């Protein structure tokens, strides 16, 4: 696959590490032939909204990775002489917060933490949710067990889970992402399960079974590829939810630790000063909106490109 070329300078390849998480999850184990992947890529490029989404993600990821080089200050550098500087102030392009920390620098580093959490959480949700969802939908005998397990997880409060995980494994960004990912598993299971239930009744599955296709072959070749649209939608919705979930956990001290920024914690901290210095909330808020938009546009385009019936060619 192509994501191994992660360190080359132009900005298009830098998109791929982020995409690879979604794309490899989705590609059926049976594998598709090369020309078809070319077709998907071509259709992706011809979708203007998808290109915009990919560009947003590319720029976000590039700036997040290059934050140490791009940021004018350390994200923790305090300037007691310049608190609450509005955006546009000389030296502080996006303004400063209550401690006089440069918002631009904090946004760049915060983006990095937030993207990490978002992608990591969704990878966890996909890795566990997709196989379990397929199994629950396809094998009647497993459905009861997996679905009760799903209900149990849904009934289990997210914060308790996160606190428990932090108690066992320590409070860190990675553990926050894990907790968020776990909390997103039931949703993923349900989406995949319902798609599987619908698809397995269709005649093309029956036709394969008549020819002696095994369960795994049917799942990999017919059911997963057709369920992919729903999985992608679910995944692109889950990423911004994870970014905001991280803010909740960090606010409680369970995620990223104080001097280090993330978009969610910046937004959470800014609420105290929202009246006096609204930009402290608006700047990270806008960053979240833009990143979310990028994921959604790109996810939609990916879904359309993977579907041969898509109207855009």
């Amino acid at each position, binding site marked *: 696959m192509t994501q191994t070329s992660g360190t080359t300078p132009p900005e298009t390849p830098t998109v791929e590490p982020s995409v690879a998480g979604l794309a490899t999850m989705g590609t059926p184990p049976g594998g598709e032939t090369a020309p078809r992947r070319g077709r998907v890529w071509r259709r992706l490029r011809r979708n203007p909204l998808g290109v915009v989404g990919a560009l947003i993600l590319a720029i976000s990821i590039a700036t997040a990775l290059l934050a140490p080089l791009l940021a004018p200050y350390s994200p923790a550098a305090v300037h007691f002489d310049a608190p609450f500087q509005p955006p546009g102030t000389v030296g502080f392009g996006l303004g400063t917060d209550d401690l006089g920390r440069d918002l631009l620098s904090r946004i760049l580093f915060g983006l990095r933490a937030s993207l990490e959490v978002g992608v990591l959480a969704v990878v966890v949700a996909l890795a566990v949710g997709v196989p379990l969802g397929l199994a629950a939908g396809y094998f009647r005998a497993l459905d009861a067990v997996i679905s009760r397990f799903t209900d149990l997880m849904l009934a289990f409060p997210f914060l308790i889970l996160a606190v428990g995980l932090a108690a066992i494994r320590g409070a860190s960004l990675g553990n926050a992402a894990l907790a968020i990912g776990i909390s997103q598993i039931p949703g993923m299971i349900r989406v995949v399960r319902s798609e599987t239930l619908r698809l397995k009744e*269709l*005649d*093309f599955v*029956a*036709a*394969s*079974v*008549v*020819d*002696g*296709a095994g369960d795994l*072959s049917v799942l990999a*070749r*017919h059911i997963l*590829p*057709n369920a992919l649209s729903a999985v992608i939608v679910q995944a692109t919705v889950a990423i911004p939810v994870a970014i905001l979930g991280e803010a909740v956990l960090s606010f409680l001290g369970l995620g990223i630790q104080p001097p280090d920024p993330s978009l969610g914690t910046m937004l959470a901290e800014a609420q105290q000063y929202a009246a006096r210095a609204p930009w402290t909330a608006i700047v990270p808020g806008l960053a979240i909106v833009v990143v979310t938009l990028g994921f959604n546009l790109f996810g939609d385009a990916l879904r359309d490109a993977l*579907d*041969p*019936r898509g109207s855009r060619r």
Partner: protein
Amino acid sequence: MSTSSAALPGTPSGDPTPESAPALELEDLVMHFGPVRAVDGVSLRVERGRVMALVGESGSGKSTVGRCVVRLLEPTSGTVRLAGTDVTALSRRRLRPHRRDVSIVFQDPASSLDPRLTVGDIVGEPLRLLRLGHSRRERANRVAEALENVGLRRQVAERYPHEMSGGQRQRVSIARALVSSPTLLVADEPTSALDVSVQASVLNLLADLQRDMGFACLFITHDLSAVEYLADDVAVMYLGQLVEQGPRERIFGDPKMPYTQALLSAAPLANPREQRARQRVLLRGDIPSPIDPPPGCRFNTRCPVAVERCVTEVPALRLIAGRQVACHLVHDDGTGPDVRLVETSTSSETLPR
């Protein structure tokens, strides 16, 4: 091909001469879904190279029979023999060599073709699954050949199902079913989801292919004009049981069972004058629930000529006048009531047109 079944050990009940065995033999097939008695004791035999039409209204269990034949459903009891081999009890692994003996074409080409696969992959799938054709190239050639056999250009292998019309998709479906050269094709209402204008061409295609390739066909349908055109034999189902079965000319020319008579009188005639002059038998009510089928003859609730005995005693299939028929009112010499002539006032009426 002939060695595959001979090499398989442990099939003592199998016919010793598989080459001459009928393509399909059903013996007292029963399929219950919980309390629903969808199929209740169907025995049927399709000789090699013959087309057997299985007709009946919706809910009669005809599609369930088809699904049991291709082993999509595990019958509650009874046996299914494909080309002489009893496949009812075979495990998944042991069934594999016999999978290629039978294929199925479904009703709705919109759902029987995977939208994510190209036509070439769809048609080639049986070859891949049944391990026929040794190389990718050989499989591609057989796919191209199969597509041309159904009147499509080989280039459509590159296309996706959604890029094709309903009739073309059904042709793809037929190509997929026949690419493995099965001895039996189960066609489950292959034309009823198509526009009337393309139904005829698909039927013609099936007839041509059947003549050229010589496969046997279980043709499940409620389209009686298609039956008349395509079938050698006809089996009529009502509420999970066969009520009349025999050569097409006998059944169409001189139906004995009142249900068959009513069914045939519902099929439109090509000649409008005959159509107008003809009396149509209107059956009362709907097909009864297969959860609680009527006692005696299952047709007695709707039969215009039913008598006391029909409610108390189950009629057996008897060989009368060259066909099997299950009706108390048909005498051994072949005489019996004809509901199209008998009475018009009480339970059947002529349509206004």
